[in-house]
């Protein structure tokens, strides 16, 4: 409906410009709320961790501290970007962009509701996996271009960690697509309709856990935040960054967290579907269910950060290669055999 209205309204423009501007408007309609969510997610993190540590968190800027993220953004905008001597200037400045771009581009295929999706492509699950795997370049290039040993150590740690956990993540997604029989995120959600006992977190429980742990590791969050490791390597890969360049890294990290939370909801927790198909639940808009589930999963990221001590580096590697990957391999075999060779195949349908 909006589409026809817009095209009628801008009918005097050439068709190419019309199409392009319509796509740009749609991108804006996703990115602006996303950026707002990211800003208030940082606020939520400080508040939640504050209360978990029996503090109150930020409460000075605006009513009850609600303008804190805006004040932070302004402060970072005003700050000087310092480029270290003998660093590679071009790569140093492009690294934060390379880290933010995949984190935002992955939202293009995100089905917020049944019809609210920018690009409903056939292999959207693979697309998301491919783009999230590219986020590591920002970290590596930042570490190398900074001409700093701490930054380089952080980049090396991050590269090895992300490559390791990506495999477990990919295998967890293989389980999802085996059960759903589709690579399209919208169809994966629609396969889970009929109440929360139809959601994939039940038949794919081990993969659900593995996926979420890998997601935490992929986003370099506590307890897997050795790439930053404040107590050992200062701030890791972004130790030399300041001002807006630093803020972009920050944005990328939080956008990635929300992305992982949203993907977990879509693949294992029924996306925009209500938990039970009865009266009070189906009255709520689908976007509400998607939002509340994503917020619930995103809360775990904050909870982990406040609760768990940082993993030792070799233990991270051991967990990734020797625990998570074998678990996924076994469960994929269980799904395959169970679906086709046992009378319990209906569990994995």
């Amino acid at each position, binding site marked *: 409906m909006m589409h026809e209205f817009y095209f009628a309204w801008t009918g005097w423009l050439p068709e*190419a410009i019309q*199409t392009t501007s319509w796509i740009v408007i749609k991108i804006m309609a996703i990115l602006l709320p996303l950026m707002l969510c990211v800003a208030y997610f940082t606020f939520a993190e400080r508040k939640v961790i504050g209360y978990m540590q029996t503090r109150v968190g930020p409460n000075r800027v605006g009513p009850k501290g609600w303008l804190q993220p805006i004040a932070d953004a302004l402060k970072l905008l005003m700050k000087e970007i310092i480029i270290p001597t003998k660093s590679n200037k071009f*790569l140093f400045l492009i690294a934060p962009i390379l880290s933010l771009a995949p984190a935002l581009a992955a939202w293009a295929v995100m089905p917020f509701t049944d019809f609210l999706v920018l690009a409903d*492509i*056939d*292999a959207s699950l*693979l*697309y998301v*996996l*491919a*783009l999230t*795997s*590219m986020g*590591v*370049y920002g970290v*590596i*290039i930042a570490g*190398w271009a900074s001409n700093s040993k701490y930054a*380089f150590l952080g*980049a*090396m740690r991050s*590269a*090895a960690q*992300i*490559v390791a956990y*990506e495999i477990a993540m*990919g295998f967890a997604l293989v389980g999802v697509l085996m059960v759903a029989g589709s*690579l399209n995120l919208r169809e994966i959600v629609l396969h889970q309709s009929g109440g929360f006992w139809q959601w994939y977190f039940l038949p794919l429980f081990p993969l659900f856990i593995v996926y979420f742990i890998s997601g935490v590791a992929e986003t370099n969050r506590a307890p897997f935040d050795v790439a930053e490791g404040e107590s050992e390597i200062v701030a890791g890969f972004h130790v030399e960054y300041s001002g807006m360049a630093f803020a972009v890294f920050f944005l990328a990290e939080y956008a990635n967290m929300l992305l992982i939370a949203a993907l977990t909801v879509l693949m294992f927790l029924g996306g925009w579907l209500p938990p039970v198909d009865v009266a009070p639940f189906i009255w709520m808009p689908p976007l509400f269910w998607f939002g509340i589930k994503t917020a619930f999963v995103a809360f775990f990221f904050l909870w982990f950060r406040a609760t768990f001590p940082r993993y030792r580096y*070799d*233990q991270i590697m*051991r967990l990734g290669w020797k625990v998570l990957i074998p678990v996924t391999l076994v469960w994929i075999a269980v799904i395959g055999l169970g679906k086709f060779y046992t009378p319990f195949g209906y569990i994995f349908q």
Partner: protein
Amino acid sequence: MTFLQFAFYVFGAALVFAAGMVVTIRNPVKSALFLVLAFFSAACVWITLQAEFLAIVLVLVYVGAVMVLFLFVVMMLDIDLAKLRAGFTRYLPIGGLVAVLLVAEIALVMYGSFDTGEYRAPVAYGVEYSNTEALGAQIYTQYVYAFEIAALILLVAIIAAIALTMRRRPNNKYNNPSAQVRVKRADRLRIVKMDSVLPTAPISVTEPTTESIPEQD
């Protein structure tokens, strides 16, 4: 020129430019990054040719994993740029000869038998057509043996690569993770029961109630 053609030429130009930079740029890290750009542009070209599964897998495997490891190694190499520069002109004639030969061979094949009537543009399928599904159906039915053999060869290669790197040096320090995981509180900590004593002035230094025992493996 439709938008799709325009996109094809943009990505094609980016691909050729990046590929040229890979071999001409001096800095090996930048060279590897241009290779990443070349892979990504190639993936974009493939998408305009309706091969979205291959394109995404190219990004996932080569850009997301192989090139990361590549960069990992290249960044840690200590390369003397002056030495590399010295070799460039020496190898230029032979490299140029190889390039000219390659172009000549391709030209021979192209002008001899490449016929646009024979190799026409791929059929434009609708939105409902699933490239991924079609490819899967081919791989797992018609070419299943070839696919399984390729998988087996890869498995052998993985095992061989791991076997080659499994060298035990005698003075190598490593820890036993399963022993570490199995550690109980009782292995490290001894709790001593003590009677509570009323403090007498001045407060004397008391024995610590707990003491740690060195780690035993």
